[in-house]
């Protein structure tokens, strides 16, 4: 679960942002969307089979990001799917506007991670709270 420490850290971050220069924009809905497409494209490049459909949903919602790059293969796909899942969970905290979409992405990436874990012959259910930010 997300800890009280994380809440306090998030609160402190908000406070610091509020005290910053007026011309420094807070993270926008578009920034959050773009970041999700970036991590999703990384999962596509790593070979996560479900990621391409999620990228299409993000693009349909207006997200923009360059194509992903980097090594591919089962291990890389598993790790990339895990990073995407954590990012979607954080996006739910950062943007209330797109929670319907991010909820859908969380469910799909979580299932995708279990699918890849089975192929790797590792535990497909290692945590009661998958995607929990560290």
């Amino acid at each position, binding site marked *: 679960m997300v800890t009280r420490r994380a809440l306090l850290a998030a609160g402190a971050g908000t406070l610091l942002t509020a005290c910053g220069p007026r011309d420094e924009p807070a993270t926008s809905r578009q920034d959050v969307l773009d970041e999700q497409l970036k991590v999703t494209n990384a999962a596509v490049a790593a070979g996560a089979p479900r990621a391409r459909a999620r990228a299409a949903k993000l693009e349909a919602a207006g997200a923009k990001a360059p194509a992903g790059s980097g090594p591919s293969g089962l291990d890389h796909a598993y790790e990339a799917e895990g990073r995407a899942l954590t990012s979607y969970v*954080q996006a739910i*905290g950062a943007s209330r506007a797109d929670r*319907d979409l991010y909820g859908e992405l969380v469910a799909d990436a*979580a*299932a995708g991670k*279990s699918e890849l874990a089975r192929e790797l012959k590792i535990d497909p*259910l290692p*945590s009661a709270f998958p995607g929990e930010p560290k």
Partner: protein
Amino acid sequence: MRRRELLLAAGTATLATPAAALGKTPTEGDVLLDLMRREQSAKLAYGAALKALGSQAPQELVTIRRHESDHADALTTELAAVGLGRPLRPPLSGAAQELAEASDRRAVLEASVMLEDELVDAYRQSLPLLPDAKIAMTVATILASHAQHRFIVGLAAGGSGS
């Protein structure tokens, strides 16, 4: 209406919050109480299924039951954050009741698929109703867990997982 749809409708109706029943937007506490009751029911139903199957029970169901207990503990913390206590466990209904009453492996796995479908739907629908970012993120990780459960029990039941 198919059997699965009837069971889903029954589960939703029984566990609907008082606010939702009155047509009001549910409060954060209402949403968390509904999710907690679902976790309590799921934990009890998986426990009954494990007892019914005995040594024939798939190991995954042991893990899933433990996860439901962990989810309930996490929701207890979030309920406390909004000034509410852990509710009494509700009577079983819908897919949870079906699972608790299943007597063979096939019936257990089919009911598990329906129950996890219900849970994934409930958690997804709850996210826009939670104003607190930290609570929403905790709920999102539990949604992820149920999506993984759904995939695993779907495979065990002979389906494609999701």
